[in-house]
């Protein structure tokens, strides 16, 4: 030891040995790389849902909370109320989960709010369907009751081509400051009249879009609030013998839009595409039909000038075939479609870009009861598409009376569509609702429900794109972290 210290190289050797040992320890103890763990969102039952049916008068109103078969809801109590706005007395209080409530509502009924809390909220769905067999408003028209929000998009014919009414309702406790923006075929309509509409809590209002912009033949409408929320819906009445229907809420601008629920019946098919951004959009159009997915001949692309809406006639492309359209663009777009029935007096129906129904979808008005269907009345079909990957969906019919039918599983091959006829089960009373759930592992599923009725003068038609059910919410992983103040 003494020799080691006195030697010139002794200390150096000692230090090198210790350094080597430290290196070894540090090297051995170096942990293996940990792959970043993706935080998994957790499904939770929705606890509160409210919506507004914009104008149910003269039609039938359907409200349902689907049964909590997969553990949805906490099994606790909860009720849904259906009442007219402005202090009308409740039309109904529903506390039975899984039972369809359907009633024909008298004319001149004010907008109806449907609100559910607790167990009655998970998946609460409402829809209004109106059937008029004569007059200017002849046609079958239906709309999914609207959840209030801060933004809504609609796309369809313009005020010059149809009588367009914008229904705005505020069922919240805060006033809503609403602005309406119209993108016409020639570009955005610059007008102050669409701005600064204040809708007080509990108020509703109908706005004729002709007053805001009289000239557009086609249009996309953006309803936004700078404060509060509003339930917006648009009804388009094309005039005597041309039909009437509600424009379904379209998916907000995105570079990929799927327009589902195109019925397999004959009739005109006209695509509307709007590019609300600052740049012209080049849109590729592909149809997803029963036998596959392909671009339509001579209609592969549409060019949409910035801030405007364009139409493309696809009657020769997808007419008579059930399916969906997949639009991809270099700029965010909004898309929808007008479909007409056949006959001497036509009816019109609209569909629009929709989100996939990953967590399932409920259609409150699945169709009329067995009696009505047998009598040659309304027919109900589901058009389901799996444009991006094979999927299996479970379809369950929830009749007004009687036990729910056993679910039916339908396989959708990738990039194919299927049209499924919905048969009302026995004892379904005046109608039924439909609950569509993709089986775990499925690709994105899009769809629509088509109601049609053959009349001597022509087919009556309405389409409701399937929307994500308000059953589940995805709870993100949250963590309290004071560093959240830093970008």
């Amino acid at each position, binding site marked *: 030891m003494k020799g080691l210290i006195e030697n010139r190289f002794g200390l150096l050797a000692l230090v090198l040995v210790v350094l080597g040992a430290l290196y070894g320890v540090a090297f051995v103890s170096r942990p293996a790389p940990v792959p970043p763990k993706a935080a998994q969102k957790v499904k939770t039952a929705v606890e509160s849902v409210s919506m507004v049916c914009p104008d149910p008068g003269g039609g039938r109103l359907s409200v349902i909370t689907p049964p909590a078969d997969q553990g949805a809801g906490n099994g606790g109590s909860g009720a849904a109320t259906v009442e007219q706005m402005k202090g009308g007395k409740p039309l109904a209080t529903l506390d039975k989960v899984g039972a369809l409530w359907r009633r024909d509502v008298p004319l001149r009924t004010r907008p109806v709010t449907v609100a559910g809390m607790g167990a009655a909220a998970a998946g609460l769905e409402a829809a209004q369907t109106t059937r008029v067999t004569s007059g200017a408003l002849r046609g079958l028209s239906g709309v999914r009751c609207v959840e209030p929000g801060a933004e809504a998009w609609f796309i369809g014919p313009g005020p010059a081509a149809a009588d367009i009414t914008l229904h705005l309702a505020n069922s919240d406790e805060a006033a809503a400051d609403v602005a309406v923006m119209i993108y016409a075929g020639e570009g955005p309509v610059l007008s102050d009249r669409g701005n600064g509409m204040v809708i007080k809590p509990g108020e509703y209002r109908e706005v004729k879009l002709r007053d805001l912009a009289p000239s557009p033949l086609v249009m996309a409408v953006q309803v936004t609030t700078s404060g509060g929320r509003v339930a917006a819906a648009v009804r388009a009445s094309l005039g005597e013998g041309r039909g009437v229907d509600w424009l379904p809420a379209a998916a907000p601008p995105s570079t990929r839009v799927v327009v589902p629920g195109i019925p397999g019946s004959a009739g005109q098919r006209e695509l509307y595409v709007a590019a609300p951004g600052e740049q012209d959009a080049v849109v590729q159009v592909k149809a997803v039909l029963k036998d596959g997915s392909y671009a339509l001949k001579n209609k592969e692309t549409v060019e949409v000038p910035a801030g405007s809406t364009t139409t493309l006639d696809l009657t020769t492309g997808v007419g008579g075939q059930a399916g969906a359209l997949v639009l991809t663009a270099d700029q965010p777009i909004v898309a929808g479609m007008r479909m007409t029935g056949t006959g001497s007096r036509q009816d019109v129906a609209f569909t629009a870009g929709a989100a996939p129904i990953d967590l399932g979808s409920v259609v409150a008005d699945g169709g009329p009861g067995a009696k009505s269907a047998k009598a040659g009345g309304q027919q109900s079909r589901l058009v389901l598409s799996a444009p991006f990957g094979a999927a299996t969906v479970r379809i369950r019919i929830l009749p007004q009376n009687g036990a729910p039918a056993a679910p039916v599983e339908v396989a959708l091959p990738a990039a194919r569509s299927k049209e499924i006829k919905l048969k009302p089960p026995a004892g379904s009373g005046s109608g039924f609702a439909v609950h569509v759930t993709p089986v775990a592992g499925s690709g994105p599923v899009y769809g629509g429900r088509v109601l049609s009725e053959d009349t001597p003068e022509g087919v009556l038609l309405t389409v409701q794109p399937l929307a994500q059910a308000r059953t589940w919410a995805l709870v993100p992983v949250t963590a*309290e972290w004071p560093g*959240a*103040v830093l970008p």
Partner: protein
Amino acid sequence: MHSVTAIVVAHDGARWLKETLDAVLRQSRPLDRVAGVDNGSRDGSGRLLAEAFGQGSVLSLPRSAGFGEAVHEVVRRLPRAQGQEWLWLLHDDCAPDPHALSALLRAADENPKAAILGPKLRDWLDRRVLLEIGVTVGRSGRRDTGLEPREYDQGQHDGPHGVVDVLSVSTAGMLIRRDVWEELAGLDPVLPLFRDDLDLCWRARIAGHRVLNVTTAVAWHAEAASRRRRRIAVSDDHPRRLDRRNGLFVIIANLPFLALVRSIFRNIAGSLARTVLFLLAKQPANALDELAALGSVLGRPGRLIKARRARKKGRKQGYPAVARLLTPPGATWRRLADMVQRYLAGEGPVDSAGRHHAAGAAEDDGDELLTDSGLFQRITSSPGVLLFLLLAGITVAAAWPLLTGGGLLGGGALVPVTGGASDLWRLYTENHHVAGLGSDTWAPPYVAVIAALSTLFFGNTALAVSVLLLGCVPLAGLSAYVATRRMISYTPARVWLAATYALLPVATGVIATGRVGTALILILIPGYVALATRVVAGSRRAAWGFGLLLAVGAAFDPLVYVMVAILGGLAAVSFGGIRRGVGLSLGIGLGTPIVLLFPWLVEIVREPRRILLESGLADPALADPRVSAEALLMFNPGGPGTPPVWVTGGLVAVALGALLLRRHQTVVAIGWGVTLFGVLLAVVVGRLGEWPGVPLAFAATGLLVATALTAHRIAEFRAAGVMRRLGALLIVVVAFATPLAAAGLWIAGGAGGPLRGDLRDPLPPLAAAFSPRGERTLLMRPEGGRLTYTILPGRAPLIGESDLRSPEADTARVGAAVAGLASGRGGDDVRTLAAYGIQFVTAPGPVEISLQRALDSEPALARMSLSEVGGLWRVVGTVTVPRPPAGGDGWHRTWLWAQAALVALVLLLASPGARTAEQYDDHGDAPEPARTSRRRPRNPEERVPA
């Protein structure tokens, strides 16, 4: 014909007496008679006197007898002699020059009116230093020699004919005519020590005699009593107090009435002002003496009246002759200006000129950079300042985007810096915090440190944090340069050490990750080293300073304390036996942080993992748990802002080379020991997933010091042959490669990282405007697949608030509600949040679409704004913030006061002005440098020979 009687009064002065007696007996003009008085000496002074003068000429008096009393006793017994009789008064510590007496008598012959003559006094130890050429006094009783401290005698004050007319001369070597002595009744026994000479000479002047200082006569004086070289037996008071009291007494007793009234008012005001100044200078003992002296003079009016009555004769008539010789009134202002100048120059604010120990202005620490040359010369001549400026330039170049960001500084571990010093002080002292969901935990002590720093920066926390964090490189360099002053004499080595230390990978990492605490620790570590070398030498004062600095470091990172404690324990084992007092000093150094941080340390000990956590946000992304083994060995802690591993290669290579030198093997071995210990700790800390910056900084410090200590060998190499000269050049190039490469890479890569200089206030202005009563705002930020959130109390968070904990139950409830709100499930979530006083929900932009939908779909929330910057939602309806629980935490308040008092006490004990006793010793009997004498344990009382 003169007849001179020398009277030597001794009191415990054997140390000087022998030389004094030799000098007296060897006078060229032989003495006619000699007399010795022994005032009860215990060191054999009496025997020495008897040996020199013969038993019959020595008188023994009790210990309590003063100088005047002793002379009186001799004169009373002294028979009359022929001719003009003179008394030559001598102290035991005053050795006259062999020709002193003849010179004095010659002057007496030439000036027949002269009744009192005194020699020029020089210092006993440094024989060239002037002590007195006569003494005068100001109207405030302030003694004034008219000399600069430590002025060498080059004849510059000598009179034209070898004599100077003065107000008074010292009793040391005073030659006085016996008849005058008897006429004036001699020295006043009321003044047993100090100023008795002044009083006597004043009375002589008034009586019409001349008082002369004969500059051709020289005596060397040790001033043993006033410098506390010996214990004063006539009084228990400190000589300083005695001096001040007697000075006041003489003034009051001798001034005529009008001048007296003016002087009394002036003295009271002056004393109070000086007391305040002394307190500011952390010299409470001086302040106390000042007040006590004033009190004891004015408090005994009987004695004053008696003294004035005795001096009544001729006082008014003789005053003009005296007033001429008093300190002119303007001198006070000149002195004040002098004092301020000295204070700015880093010396004590109270000057010592004119005091008895004027020669004792020992140089103190930290004055190297503050030498009294001009500013320009200082800058161009001090390598430390140049290095600081260079490093500051490098920092500005690297951190330019941060400095010019135009927003708030923040990122990494640092929340955007908002608020002022008062906010931080309130955070530190309040019992209930509004941060988060409200918290009752005590704020961590580092908040107080940052608050104190902010106060120094005029309350601007952002400026204080910026200077501390971004200025960490130049400040660390400067501190390393200054701290090694005592250790390393070779300046290039110090420059290299400071530059390398300042640009360590740890330093750049600290800045990039916004670790303010570690930045401060980096600046402090050289101070630890410098103080530690004095602590292990047993210095008590350094120990207090060390303890205080260690407490500051440990408040930011408890790991600092653990490391220092382990090293301190090792030092105690190895040095404890060598020097006395080392154990106690180490105990003070290591115990002070525990006492100062006590309640917080208890919390830390309860959760040992927090030992590894530094202050600020504990973001795991800032540390790299997979930092490679070679990086750790190269002092590179990994994480953002650290350079490539090879940068420190030069340092390690040179340090390994230093191991080959034989001469400094112990120092190098200790340095490498610290390094290996630090690296080991860094490996442990790093593998536990925390940032190993602090242990690596310690490790690098050990290596740098060890290497720089041996660096002067390079200079020797240069003087040797060509091969050696080439070798030296190579070593220098390799050594300087490290700081140069680090600086270059730093400038190229930029100082930023997670740290940014362009942050916005996280609370939207709209929310801030509508939160008059501290309504809270929930801030949500999706990050890496999960949603992080925090709750702001109506303002941006402050530094330190992230360490507060809210009650667990509340946190869990709010956490569930936030998750529910973000999912958009509806329900009671907003109501739950509102119950906690949350009025706003904000998400910084661009807001994720799903989050925006979820918030928009919530009926109880109304959107206020949404843009690229972010979104803001308001809870509908009014929200009331829950009131904090009533009633204060008495224990917290008590502790805060106690902590403040303890910090003040430690500051007092650590600061240079606190222990003036050391200064007296520093130029004491042994002619050794102050530095070495300070290292020895001492007790001033012990050193007086008993």
